[in-house]
């Protein structure tokens, strides 16, 4: 995968200073929203980024699209590190990465026709499509399953699913290499959600665009992704090919996350091994030492004192495709079966 990757993210970080007032110094404390995230993505592939709220998945996506400036690390697209680009270079980069947002209504100007909205990125990038702008927009409308006569309509005349199609048309208008999809179907009803997921897959097959698909719904992620990365408190705890990760999760957090998903199948739900995490997510402003997951880890209590000490003092190596970010993942499977 790495050989043909178009996107490499290495040790990406985003630290937010905790807001200081007039008389208290700024930056004395920081929240590490994203803390050393690495992955790569090949043409025509989808990387699913999953995790619970506050895990840093959206922040990671926004940094890749450079809607947010990274605090550290590298984002290499087509061989160019874009993490520190500014001005003209950043402007040129924009056409390579586009974004689709959760709430298509909020990301469309209510007083602008969808035709204008879809043309906006092309106008901003001073692109003159052959055959004229209007024709290109109508072509895009058809590509996303809308009708050319929708050109002059306003966002409020569309349903949620149709608005998301408009958002997709806008994102693909510049033929980007990567589209960051931030919870693109979370606001949609199940039956409509499937339409949009299918559309995204068709577009990928036709254009070879790569997706970073950010979602909290693991079923959708499993359906659309080739690779999946699981985040917890700003770090990737496990990543790997989809089937491997879903069939044989190695990190205790991944196991817990998967076992918490309610299955739309009563018999399977009764048989499902349930690992329940206790307590709440620790504050990202004050994360646990060593392994960030240890405070809620179902494995932790089964460990010997020496092993526990290691979790408390030693930060696990970042997750690679070969191993999760866990000191004791080797014994996780057996131990967790005992816990339950």
């Amino acid at each position, binding site marked *: 995968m790495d050989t043909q990757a178009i996107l490499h993210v290495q040790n990406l970080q985003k630290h937010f200073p905790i*807001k200081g*007032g*007039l*008389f208290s110094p700024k930056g004395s404390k920081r929240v590490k929203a994203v803390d050393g995230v690495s992955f790569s993505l090949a043409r025509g592939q989808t990387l699913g980024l999953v995790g619970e709220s506050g895990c840093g998945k959206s922040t990671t996506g926004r940094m890749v699209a450079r809607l947010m400036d990274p605090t550290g690390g590298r984002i290499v697209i087509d061989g160019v590190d874009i993490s520190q680009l500014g001005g003209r270079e950043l402007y040129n980069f924009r056409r390579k990465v586009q974004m689709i947002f959760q709430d298509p209504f909020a990301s469309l100007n209510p007083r602008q026709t969808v035709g204008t909205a879809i043309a906006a990125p092309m106008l901003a990038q001073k692109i003159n499509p052959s055959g004229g702008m209007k024709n290109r927009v109508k072509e895009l409308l058809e590509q996303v399953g809308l009708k050319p006569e929708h050109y002059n309509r306003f966002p409020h005349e569309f349903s949620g699913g149709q608005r998301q199609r408009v958002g997709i048309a806008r994102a693909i208008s510049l033929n980007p290499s990567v589209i960051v999809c931030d919870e693109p179907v979370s606001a949609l009803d199940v039956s409509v959600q499937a339409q949009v997921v299918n559309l995204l897959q068709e577009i990928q097959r036709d254009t070879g665009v790569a997706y970073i698909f950010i979602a909290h719904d693991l079923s959708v992620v499993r359906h659309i992704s080739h690779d999946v990365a699981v985040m917890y408190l700003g770090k990737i705890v496990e990543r790997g090919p989809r089937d491997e990760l879903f069939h044989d999760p190695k990190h205790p957090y991944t196991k817990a996350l998967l076992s918490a998903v309610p299955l739309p199948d009563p018999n399977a739900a009764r048989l499902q091994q349930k690992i329940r995490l206790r307590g709440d997510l620790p504050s990202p402003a004050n994360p646990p030492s060593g392994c960030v997951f240890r405070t809620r880890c179902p494995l932790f209590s089964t460990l010997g004192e020496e092993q526990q000490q290691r979790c408390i003092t030693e930060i696990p190596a970042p997750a690679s495709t070969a191993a999760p970010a866990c000191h004791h993942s080797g014994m996780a499977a057996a131990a967790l079966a005992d816990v339950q």
Partner: protein
Amino acid sequence: MTRFIFRRAGSLILLLVTVSFITFTLFQLGPADPASAACGQECTPERITEARVALGMDHPFLIQYLDYMRGLVSPRMIGAPGAESICQWPCLGKSFQTNENVSDIIARSLPYTLSIAVGALVLWTISGVGLGLLAALRKGSATDKFIVGAASVGVSLPIPVTGLFLLLVFVNQLHLLPFTTNEINGAFGPHGPWAWVLNYFLPWVALAVLFSAAYIRVTRTNMIETFSEDFIRTARAKGLAPRIVTFKHGVRAGITPVVTMLGMDIGLLLGGAVLTEQIFSVPGLGFTAVRAAISGDLPVTMAITMLAAFFVIVANVAVDLAYAAIDPRVRLQ
């Protein structure tokens, strides 16, 4: 909480210094020449120069500003060398017209303005919030439509129109109320509180008609929004009585924007209700400021301007504190 107050007080002082500097600069750059105004009708170039020295205007601008600011902290000497007189703390300079201490002029005018402001404020808050709440509770009904209609009429009536109309009807025609007198400038004076109320009733009504319209609208909009909030539904789902849902859960949450408005309006009004004081011939701050501006009496105009700015800023801080008291989420920051 204490830290919160200290931090607000810190920024308050910084703001006041900034405002005073800007005001001072504006008056220095302005077209009016205070020296020629001060030296009167038969003015010769020599007398203008004398006047400039007497007013301290021969000093560089920054020195003048610092002198002025020093007067706010301690007494200082004022006037040409040899003919100085002491200006007691708080020294805001001396009037070009009467040579009186500006602080005395303000001390004399302020009670009138206060009298107008306090009563008008109480009147319009009660009527504005009350009618706004009533309209929100009866949303869509004839009552609601009448109140909203009346509010839009009220907001489009300028003070001179309402004021003169009230004077004509209640004083001239019906003789129900006395014409405003300058002898009463407080509720606890020799004439007693009732005389005070009667004396200022018409200015209060004139201001209340204008101001309560905005309060009706803001209260109505916010209360309607609040009544549709999820926590109101929760309160009903608990089985609480409508009275408790409305007042304990609804009003407390919906009233916060009104507190902001109230703060801003108090600030503005304490700087002098210029038109109202003119119409009803009340010698308050606004009345005094207008006269001083016309005659080019720089120190008086300057002092009232700064005082008005001071009131607005203090009112802002008061609003912030009130917010923190009402909304626990604000206390965090």
